[in-house]
């Protein structure tokens, strides 16, 4: 191919690229994902409506306006156990600034008798909810434990951390983000 022909092809390609950019512009707002619930960054956090072992009920949609950390865990999961003291420490520091931590025990795959001793051992003060039928695990597409969802005040998920244990710095940076 002659240099002039090649340059003409390149110019046409670039021009076509520009046309494609304008043609495929997101005029309908299709790329904004915050309108439907899904356990993914940028989406609305799926609803949670569960009770604590004492029978106190918590509903995520009622916590709108607060920054929420949802942590799915089980007593048999070593990384879950490892990160519990850090979550408790951070909760103590940030709860007055508007942070709510919901520790959701995946009771459908855990031993309910182990939960109370676990909470006493780690001195947990934030609400622990029991997912007895696995509805939240299903809604949050749970594939690995622990899984943590950092939810902004408007109810959208700011970030998802799958696996653990989460370090203190990670928790701090993520929580400061959702408290903004």
């Amino acid at each position: 191919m002659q240099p002039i022909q090649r340059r003409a092809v390149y110019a046409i390609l670039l021009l076509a690229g520009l046309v494609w950019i304008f043609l495929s512009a997101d005029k309908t707002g299709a790329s904004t994902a915050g309108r439907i619930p899904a356990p993914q960054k940028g989406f609305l956090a799926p609803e949670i409506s569960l009770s604590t072992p004492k029978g106190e009920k918590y509903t995520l949609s009622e916590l709108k306006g607060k920054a929420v950390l949802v942590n799915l865990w089980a007593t048999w999961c070593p990384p879950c156990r490892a990160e519990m003291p850090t979550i408790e420490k951070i909760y103590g520091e940030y709860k007055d600034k508007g942070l709510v931590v919901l520790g959701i025990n995946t009771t459908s795959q855990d031993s309910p008798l182990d939960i109370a001793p676990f909470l006493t051992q780690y001195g947990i003060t934030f609400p622990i909810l029991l997912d007895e039928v696995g509805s939240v695990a299903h809604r949050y597409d749970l594939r690995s434990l622990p899984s943590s969802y950092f939810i902004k005040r408007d109810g959208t998920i700011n970030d998802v951390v799958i696996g653990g244990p989460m370090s203190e710095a990670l928790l701090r940076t993520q929580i400061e983000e959702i408290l903004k």
Partner: protein
Amino acid sequence: MLAIFRNLLAPPRDLILIVAAAWFGLSLAEKRAARYHVDAEVLNNLIFTGLLAYIIGGRLFYAAEHISAFAQSPLSLISLNITLSDSWGALAAAIITGLAYAQRKGLSLWSALDALTLFFAALAVGLGFSHLASGAAFGQEASLPWAINLWGAMRHPTQIYEIIASFLTLGLFWFRKADSKPGSDFLLFAALTAASRLIIEAFRGDSTLIFGDLRVAQLVAWGILAIALLALEFLRPKIAPIIVNEPEEEILPIKTESKKAKSSVTKPKRNNLKTKKKSTKTSKA
């Protein structure tokens, strides 16, 4: 099938795909290193140095951005959380370290980049599979026969588009014959990758928008495509060709010389050969 794949390789296991792709790409790049006059071991070290710098640099940049959080728990600097990394900082660290290493080893920039092209192409395939496993880089809602159910809706399988495009690029470079012009392989790879991103981004459902409704990634991809094409067209001829160490030969002005002159020039060569043969015979004796 897709559900099984996503269950088996859900995060953080999706990283296995990237590591496997990096290993595969490294093997390919090593095999082809000689084609670009790059030592395979030097290339191997270059990639490892770059990857190490990517990991450490990413963490240090992230820590610098969130200095107060790390000041309260300095041990977090060595935590295994991959989220604690700044991707742009990591990339900058890898590029700077790679350049420094290449300069120290006397590697030509264009030859090194050409030799790395297969590594990058394989890595892009791994990244596509990782996106498919994690559900990242997802598509817009669509009612197509090949749409996939993801994040509460039927969507364009943009991760599959990404894998196909990356495989095509990898295949092209796998079967492509060596180009003597340094930089051409890498620039072509950059152009193809940018072009595929420019097209696929249009179907993505997680695009960051600018100027109202334009997608940032498309604008960046267009810029890279333009630079790569310009570089292919204008920079490439100016780059000095790779110097291959071959015995110096006398350049003969054949076209301009008469037949008589040609025979006078070629004769001494034959004589040279004869004398060489003679000398070998004598040495054998």
